[in-house]
């Protein structure tokens, strides 16, 4: 029993290791959000026109066209600032969840699937894209879990 506890203890991550993992996951979100946000802003007209074709939300294409990339840049900024990192991780994971929900609904119900995701991500197969998003959601969830369980927050 004591031996098992010692073995279990050896798998525990140190506070510094947790902080590094949280920081690296945050940087991954910063990279992907800044990459896709800049790509969407660069092709704003095309992105906005693409959204206008999506049922139910098409009428808000101008707001969504500006809102999504600006939200991605804002979340990137929150992730970079250490004091706002936890809020940034929550918003990043939530936004990735919304994107994944959209992808899931498209895969399940839409005949003509529309993806205006920005950059090379747009060229992914739908299943690959869904897996990519799910990995980011899991990473975000893990980072939030580690952040909750460590006193030393980045």
């Amino acid at each position, binding site marked *: 029993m004591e031996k098992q506890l010692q073995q279990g203890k050896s798998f525990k991550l140190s506070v510094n290791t947790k902080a590094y993992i949280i920081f690296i996951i945050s940087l991954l979100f*910063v990279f992907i*959000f*800044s*990459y896709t946000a800049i*790509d969407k802003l660069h092709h704003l007209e095309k992105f906005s026109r693409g959204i206008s074709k999506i049922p139910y939300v098409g009428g808000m294409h101008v707001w969504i066209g500006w809102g999504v990339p600006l939200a991605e840049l804002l979340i990137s900024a929150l992730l*970079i*600032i*250490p004091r706002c990192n936890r809020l940034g991780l929550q918003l990043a994971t939530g936004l990735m969840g919304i994107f994944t929900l959209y992808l899931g609904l498209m895969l399940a119900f839409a005949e003509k699937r529309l993806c205006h995701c920005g*950059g090379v991500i747009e060229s992914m197969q739908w299943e690959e894209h869904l897996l990519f998003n799910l990995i980011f959601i899991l990473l975000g969830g893990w980072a939030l879990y580690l952040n909750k369980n460590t006193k030393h927050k980045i």
Partner: protein
Amino acid sequence: MAIKKTVSQIALGLAVVGLGATASAFTNTEVQSNIVRYYSTTGNLTDTDPANFIYVDGTSDDCTPDMSKQCSALFDIGENSPEPNEAPPAGSSYQGSALTGDSPHQQ
């Protein structure tokens, strides 16, 4: 010490944003040309006006031989997507490679 760590984390974060911006610019340069075949609606051999051409989805080549008419031509529509039964979008450029012939799309 804590301030130094905070500043270095912010600097690293900004460097990653820069990396994202660079990657975005790099991938954008690869998708600026999109050459698509459009069908003439006039049949005029010398016509290069995009307004006189339409895109027909799924059609490979339905031109019947007629050397006196232009059947289809290529247009560079940039980063746009072709829309069925619509002319090349604004800003498209005539690329040539015209095929002669008569087509059901001519009016």
